[in-house]
């Protein structure tokens, strides 16, 4: 299949949305478009698996290369491996869920959906691009839509949060840019091409400079400690779909970049800095968990827990073992689905109760069983209940990181494990206070989920369960890719 369609489809959708005459048309366009996305991504998965079954060992599938700024040796080079396919699936799921959840946005509907679709465009482009220049291009495309989404449709201190988000992400991409340039000029035939870069051996001293730049740069996107502070504010002020996209997709861009660009191209750097990465990410994991424990606003709770969970991603990458890396990717997918659902649920609750303060709720299970059941499920998922996606990912990471026999990695792993207890604490606090306990009078006659909310939830839930109950498909999807990366790392001195 031609990967360009993955970019053209959202583009076309966006154009149609702009052309649409009224709100309902816009929504329909968006829905159809995102449905098409999901169809296409599933088709991609199928095609990929069949292809991969035939030709084992090839790294990238469906490669396409178009001339673009030839004088800079930039080519529009596309291709996917298991990891990208997984991320694309995730994106498609989150996108359609987001579109559905924000069905009753009245304010500037057209612009809203336009920006949403633009975001998805950025994500797809990012995941399929094999040329670091276009990768960067797509990375930055996503920044402004986020800013506008939060700033225009957000709530609370939205301007502040939007600014913070845009600027911190910009800072991240600035670092990335410098790192990329460093790589570009160290390669003999100045090239941004990932495949080419992966073949040449980057001098170690260059790696020493560029790896941290790239890793931290991408890390900002996935809330590396201490650059995570845009996450709570950004998520909490964003509109529901906005938070879903932020946490579900765009935080994953960072993780993907850390893995695919920083770690893969600069194995020496990765090895050299892995200790620091592990320290930072374990801090993020436990620290985020404890910080979550003190939060009172549902969105803040989920935001901080996202910090903690994305810590697992970096943790897995930093461990530099195949299993842990696979786990990291799984965690990206699982966390993406889970947190998207979580935000969707929070949004549903907020729409009804008009508060996100945990204290002010209680006993909602009585009036909105569907939504609160979702809340239970997603909460359990995030505390790693077997049968849901979180368990699979985290266990894989633990198993992988335990493969290091030395004390440091052991302790780091144990610290990471501890977070699952803290997670249990805060999740139960939140869920317990929200769904259980006596019901407040003012909430006596609230309604349960509507069709669109149900649809969105079910879509995401399918993903979560599909991973949680039968993880092997995802595992088999990701493993070959991580194997290749690990080979490169093993090759490094």
């Amino acid at each position, binding site marked *: 299949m031609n990967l360009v369609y993955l970019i053209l489809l959202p583009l076309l959708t966006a154009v149609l949305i702009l052309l649409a005459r009224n709100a309902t048309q816009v929504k329909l366009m968006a829905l159809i478009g995102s449905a098409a996305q999901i169809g296409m991504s599933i088709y991609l998965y199928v095609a990929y698996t069949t292809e991969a079954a035939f030709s084992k060992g090839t790294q990238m599938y469906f490669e396409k290369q178009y*001339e*673009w*700024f*030839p*004088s*800079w040796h*930039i080519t529009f080079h596309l291709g996917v491996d298991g990891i990208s396919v997984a991320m694309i699936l995730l994106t498609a799921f989150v996108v359609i869920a987001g579109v559905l959840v924000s069905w009753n946005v009245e304010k500037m509907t057209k612009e809203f959906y336009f920006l949403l679709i633009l975001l998805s465009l950025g994500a797809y482009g990012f995941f399929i691009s094999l040329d670091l220049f276009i990768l960067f*291009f*797509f990375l*930055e*495309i996503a*920044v*402004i839509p986020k*800013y*506008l989404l939060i*700033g*225009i449709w957000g709530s609370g201190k*939205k*301007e502040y949060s*939007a*600014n913070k988000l*845009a*600027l911190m992400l*910009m*800072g991240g991409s*600035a*670092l990335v*840019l*410098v790192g990329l*340039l*460093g790589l*570009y*000029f*160290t390669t003999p035939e100045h090239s941004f091409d990932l495949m080419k870069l992966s073949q040449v051996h980057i001098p170690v001293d260059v790696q020493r*400079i560029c790896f941290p*730049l790239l890793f931290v740069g991408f890390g900002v996107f996935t809330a590396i400690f201490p650059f995570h502070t845009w996450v709570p504010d950004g998520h909490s002020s964003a509109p529901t779909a906005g938070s879903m996209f932020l946490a579900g997709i765009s935080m994953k861009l960072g993780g993907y970049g850390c893995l695919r660009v920083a770690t893969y191209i600069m194995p020496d750097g990765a090895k050299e800095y892995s200790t620091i990465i592990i320290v930072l990410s374990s801090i993020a994991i436990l620290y985020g968990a404890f910080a979550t424990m003190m939060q009172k606003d549902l969105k803040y709770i989920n935001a901080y827990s996202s910090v903690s969970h994305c810590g697992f991603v970096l943790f897995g990458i930093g461990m530099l073992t195949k299993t842990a890396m696979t786990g990291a990717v799984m965690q990206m997918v699982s966390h993406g689905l889970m947190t998207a659902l979580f935000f969707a649920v929070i949004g549903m609750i907020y729409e009804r109760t008009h508060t996100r303060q945990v204290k002010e709720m209680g006993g909602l299970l009585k009036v909105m069983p569907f939504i609160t059941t979702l809340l239970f499920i997603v909460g359990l998922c995030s505390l790693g209940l077997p049968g849901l996606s979180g368990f699979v990912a985290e266990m894989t990471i633990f198993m992988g990181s335990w493969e290091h026999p030395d004390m440091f990695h052991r302790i780091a792993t144990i610290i990471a494990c501890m977070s699952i207890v803290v997670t249990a604490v805060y999740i139960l606090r939140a869920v317990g206070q929200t769904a259980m306990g006596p019901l407040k009078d003012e909430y006596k006659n609230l309604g349960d989920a509507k069709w669109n909310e149900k649809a969105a939830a079910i879509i995401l839930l399918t993903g979560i369960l599909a991973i949680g109950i039968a993880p092997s498909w995802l595992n088999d999807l990701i493993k070959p890719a991580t194997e290749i990366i690990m080979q490169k790392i093993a090759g490094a001195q």
Partner: protein
Amino acid sequence: MNEFCTLLKSELLITVIIFLLLFIKIGKGIKNDGLLAMIQFLLLMNLIAGFFFNKTGSLFGDMFFTSPLIAFQKNILNLGVYLISLLFADWFRKHEHMPEFFILMLSALLGMFFMISSGNLLIFYLSLELATIPVAAMVNFDLDKKISSEGAMKMILSSAFSSGILLFGISLMYGATGTLSFAEIPAALDGSPLQILVLVFLFSGFAFKLSIVPFHLWTADVYEGAPIATTAFLSVISKGSIAFIFITALYKVFQPMSAVWYNMLILLSVATMIIGNLFALRQQNIKRFLAFSSIAQVGFILVGISSNSPQLGITSVVYFILIYVFSNLAAFGVAAVISSQSGKEKIDDYKGLYKTNPFLSWILALALFSLAGIPPTAGFFGKLFLITAGASKSNYGFVTFVALNMIVSLYYYLIVVRAVFMDKNDAPVEKINIHPATKLGLVICGAGVILVGLMSWIYDYILGLT
């Protein structure tokens, strides 16, 4: 003779238009509207003509030199002037001295043309003055505004001062080398202290026009005081032209002293970016804001120039300026429409603009994003290539600094965006019906902002010219 005409084509065309305007003015025949339409048409023709018969060659000894690249640069300026004639139609129509304005603008443009293709310090100086003095007059064209004449005063005096220093430098250069022609100077350069002094004095002359820190201080006041059309002309056309000749001067004339001016560029570009950004943060008046933002942009241009491969540097700078023409003119165009309709020039007045004028808001947003270097706008590519060119010497500290500066600039561009899209305002700018010409101009700018980046062949075309 034929060759004479082809080489001097663009200059001759402009001269013809100037005299045409003079005669029309004398024969007081045509109303402003018709005249404006005619001028726009002429400029369009001129722009189109600019694409053909571009040859390499020199005239008048080696005083005048042209090549396809130079022709292209001139045509970028032509484009800019054409867009100006479209974008500020509203203001032109109302102005009683519209033809004079165009006469002055075109003679300044003529000066720039000669400046770009000057092969000799004398011509350079003369054309520089020709590109400056009429503009000073243009600054004063809001005849009954105090700040307008204040701005004009500041401009004429400080430019006279700077040209004094420039001249002093030139005279010493003449003494030290005995020649004025660009072709012969490099041979005579040996980097002696006096020559460094000469270099600095000449450099400051350029720096003044490019408004590089610390020679930039006139910029903001003049921009604010001037009528927006003039401001646009100053910040886009004259900056662009001076940047072109600046590159040639550095790469061709002062090549032997590159070690010195490279450091100078690094130093000043850092200073320029910092100052420009820091001042832009606080600005309330949109023109002043754009003035400082353009100073920061100049900082980026310097980064591009500081590349170690002339070809890379020249191409990226020319490319950037092409993009800069589109984005900056779009911003000024929107500002002009709003101020000429409602007289509002403060950023706070832009609050809630999106509610009433979505088209203008989107164009403005596009322009600002392009200036901030956000994809998919062309500005992203322009900035990126500048930085890449500058990074070719791979000193990471500098490049990192430059990249981080993009954050600050994004911050203040977002201030405007926020005002337009997010902030509430109970008395926003009311619905504006835009003059068709202006609309056309804005659309062209918007299209340019989006397409110039995505169509990579444009870049390669420029590269082919260098």
